[in-house]
């Protein structure tokens, strides 16, 4: 049972009116390995979370940003679990940029070992690695790490606050704290006090050592809690970044060079300035902004600015880019993170099965277009509102763009209308600040058009894979996967932090090298292509590519072996990772796998272990006169400890829809160095009538107790191969390229 060694009081966090008459509690972590110089001592860096108590109730300051994944509710439940408050008393806010809100969970994503091996030994991280998120102030929402990062931190904050409140009451009553109990936001003894009554005194009384409660007593954690944002999101009263309203606010949009990275050689704003309601056209070097009295007028005016665009340094079109990716196969592998047995010797025996697969660039296309609001104040400081996944980085980028100190930037992180990895870059916030600087003392809300959002995105890389395998006596004896792609990680980090990290590029091969298949000879190589197209992190990152490659090829091997594709996988997994194998059995039984095989229908299975969570999916398709229909899908996942089953279920379903949308019809292409797709009519996701029916089962056997896998991303990777495998079962045609509508006619 976890017992947190030391908790000390921390200074107040002032959040305007939120803490007037209230008290803020925080927690300190003392390093598990104090001798390590990289791990700060007792007076070192503060750890989140903050708990604010005032007459309004309990406010949890969430260190992770809410973009729909439900993390704010889960983090609040962890605090509430220890604090003994009623759920109706709890609300949650996102914290300001601060090192205290670093994401401890990111350490889970810093190893080049397969996740399924790490989950068996959750405490194996070394202290230096564990300290990295703190040292580098990684206040970042991503990698499906929010719940694991907050699992101990948030409970410690709740427990520390509870004990401090008891101590305050004990002082008043002249009794020992352990004679008192807490319930419903009150300390109860001979006399009852509300937390709000005790908060000011309690701030000085946070104890040094608080044991965390036994999981068998949990009331909130592990339960499906009503989401704290649900009522607001069902009544139009949630304030997304795009909904910020400020006095005297102006409305702007941008039109940036679609040849990404290229300059603007000239622009003539005359036609735009002649339009009623237009205030200014602001030159931005590589594009323009128009400021007007409403957003629509700004968008109309931006289209009539006469602009000459310069060229950029990447190939002109998709075909030339794919040639560049293909050329990477001739280079030395960047990584070989899996090399079990002797693949080359086994393949030299002959009868090698080979296949090449391709996946396209993809856009994020969140429902809320990119936007940010900025207000440059008379003293030169700037206040910015922008839904973002990395507040410290965003704040510093704004400061750098305006040539002011970071202390002059105040950044708010409103909830996001979807993110999927697409709100990591600080560009919208920086552009809004620059535009607002052209109109000082006036708040300016900058909203991208849908077209601008799509052509100025940072894309999931296109990739090519070459797979080789060998079957003997119906058994898979060898698999050699090679993936070639430009590196999203290096591309993004060079842009975001100025350098590309050394070492193998895991994202190019994740979902391929790290799967729990007990193949006797198993090698996986990554070849990094030299291509400077703007790339970013797309829900499940490299897993979204490699799961399609690996799981399609495993299916081909199964077919070559005359084996049932589900039983074939199960056979390879059984001795390697039991929780994963049991997911295959679960989807088999849920779907009635054997009975799915019937005329007019196809069935496909796929699996991927990503972000600490194995997921198996079965997809059923039907041939109808109107085209192929995605009829039913079954998902079994095992995140270890499921913090909130309703949220896990929603994430698994939504992530599969996201993956299926891309698999069926998602594709970003380039012509004349610019993205071709502009809006939903040419980048359309699945809709109500084209999505399948879902059934989800959540198992909790993975890892040792306290293992918490991510849930936001792992549902995406198996979607494309499960569907492609079902289409093969239905039609006998093997799809080796996405999107699948190139090969199949789907019901529209």
């Amino acid at each position, binding site marked *: 049972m976890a017992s947190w060694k030391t908790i000390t009081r921390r200074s107040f966090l002032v959040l305007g009116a939120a803490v007037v008459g209230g008290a803020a509690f925080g927690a300190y972590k003392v390093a598990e390995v104090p001798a390590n110089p990289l791990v700060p001592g007792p007076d070192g860096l503060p750890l989140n979370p903050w708990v604010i108590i005032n007459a309004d109730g309990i406010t949890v300051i969430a260190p992770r940003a809410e973009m729909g994944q439900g993390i704010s509710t889960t983090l609040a439940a962890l605090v509430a679990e220890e604090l003994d408050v009623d759920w109706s008393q709890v609300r949650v806010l996102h914290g300001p940029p601060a090192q205290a809100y670093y994401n401890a969970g990111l350490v889970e994503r810093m190893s080049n070992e397969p996740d399924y091996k790490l989950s068996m030994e959750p405490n194996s991280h070394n202290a230096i690695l564990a300290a990295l998120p703190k040292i580098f102030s990684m206040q970042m929402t991503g990698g499906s790490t929010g719940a694991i990062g907050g699992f101990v931190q948030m409970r410690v904050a709740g427990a520390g606050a509870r004990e401090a409140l008891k101590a305050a009451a004990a002082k008043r009553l002249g009794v020992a704290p352990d004679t008192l109990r807490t319930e419903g936001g009150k300390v109860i003894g001979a006399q009852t006090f509300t937390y709000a009554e005790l908060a000011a005194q309690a701030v000085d009384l946070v104890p040094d050592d608080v044991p965390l409660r036994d999981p068998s007593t949990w009331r909130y954690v592990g339960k499906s809690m009503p989401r704290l944002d649900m009522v607001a999101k*069902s009544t139009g*009263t949630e304030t997304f970044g795009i909904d910020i*309203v400020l006095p005297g606010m102006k*409305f702007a949009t941008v039109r940036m060079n679609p040849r990404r990275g290229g300059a603007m050689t000239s622009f003539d704003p005359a036609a735009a300035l002649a339009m009623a309601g237009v205030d200014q056209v602001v030159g931005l070097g590589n594009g323009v902004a128009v400021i007007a009295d*409403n957003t629509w007028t700004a968008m109309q005016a931006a289209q009539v600015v006469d602009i000459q665009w310069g060229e950029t340094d990447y190939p002109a079109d998709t075909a030339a880019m794919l040639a560049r990716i293909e050329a990477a196969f001739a280079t030395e592998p960047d990584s070989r993170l899996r090399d079990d047995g002797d693949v080359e010797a086994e393949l030299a025996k002959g009868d090698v099965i080979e296949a090449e697969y391709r996946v396209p660039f993809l856009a994020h296309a*969140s429902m*809320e277009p990119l936007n940010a609001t900025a207000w440059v104040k008379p003293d030169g400081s700037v206040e910015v509102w922008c839904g973002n996944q990395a507040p410290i980085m965003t704040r510093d980028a704004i400061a750098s763009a305006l040539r002011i100190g970071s202390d002059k930037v105040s950044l708010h992180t409103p909830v996001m209308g*979807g993110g999927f990895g697409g709100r990591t870059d600080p560009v919208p916030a920086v552009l809004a600040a620059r535009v607002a600087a052209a109109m000082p003392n006036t708040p300016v809300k900058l909203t991208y058009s849908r077209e601008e959002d799509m052509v100025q995105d940072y894309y999931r890389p296109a990739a090519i894979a070459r797979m080789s395998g060998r079957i003997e006596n119906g058994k898979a004896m060898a698999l050699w996967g090679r993936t070639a792609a430009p590196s999203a990680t290096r591309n993004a980090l060079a842009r975001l932090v100025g350098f590309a990290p050394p070492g193998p590029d895991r994202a190019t091969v994740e979902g391929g090298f790290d799967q729990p298949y007990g193949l006797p000879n198993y090698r996986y190589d990554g070849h990094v292509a030299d291509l400077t197209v703007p790339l970013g992190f797309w829900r499940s990152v490299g897993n979204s590519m490699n799961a399609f490659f690996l799981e399609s090829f495993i299916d081909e091997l199964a077919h070559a072996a005359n084996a049932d594709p589900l039983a074939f996988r199960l056979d390879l997994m059984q001795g390697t990772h039991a929780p994963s194998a049991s997911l295959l059995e679960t989807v088999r039984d849920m779907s009635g796998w054997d009975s799915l095989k019937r005329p007019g229908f196809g069935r496909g299975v796929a699996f991927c272990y990503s972000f600490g969570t194995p997921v198996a999916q079965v997809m059923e398709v039907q041939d109808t006169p109107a085209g192929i229909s995605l009829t039913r899908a079954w998902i079994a996942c095992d995140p270890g400890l499921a913090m909130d089953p309703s949220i896990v279920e929603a994430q698994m379903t939504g992530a599969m829809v996201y993956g299926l949308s891309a698999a069926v019809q998602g594709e970003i292409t380039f012509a004349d160095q610019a993205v071709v797709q502009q809006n939903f009519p040419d980048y359309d996701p699945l809709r*109500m009538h084209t999505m399948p029916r879902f059934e989800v089962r959540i198992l909790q056997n993975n890892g040792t107790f306290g293992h918490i896998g991510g849930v936001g991303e792992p549902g995406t990777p198996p979607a494309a191969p499960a569907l492609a495998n079902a289409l093969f079962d239905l039609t006998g045609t093997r799809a080796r390229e996405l999107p699948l509508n190139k090969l199949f006619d789907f019901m529209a």
Partner: protein
Amino acid sequence: MSFTLSVNGALRQVDLPKDVPLLWALRDGLGMTGTKFGCGVASCGACTVLIDGQAVRSCQVPLGEATGEITTIEGVGQPGALAPLQEAWVRHQVAQCGYCQSGQIMQAAALLAQVPEPTDQDIDDAMQGNLCRCGTYPRIRAAILDAARTMKAG
């Protein structure tokens, strides 16, 4: 130019040119931000409002033509006084990011007003213009069916 709109039972004056779409008149002119901008081309449904009971894409209705009785999400119910449809949305924990849900609820409200007991096919037909990138479709469907049952029971 000044226009008078009838929004959620109240007359509201907005000073914008007549070709500005109703969506932006609501959001930028009146500060009513519950109605969302998603695509600007009637392809996603995030901006759905009712005009005289019909679901329309407010990004396609010029201010000068917005003459009927307009109902926005703010007029359906409030956090302290949810409409039955919104109660169903909360009961089924529909929203993830929540950005499309105003439009989904408006579209569903129009459906239930016309077809009080919708079939799955009715829901497919009515809701297919409303995108959700989070993939909340299964819960939207469940909430509509549940709301229909609740509203019938009265």
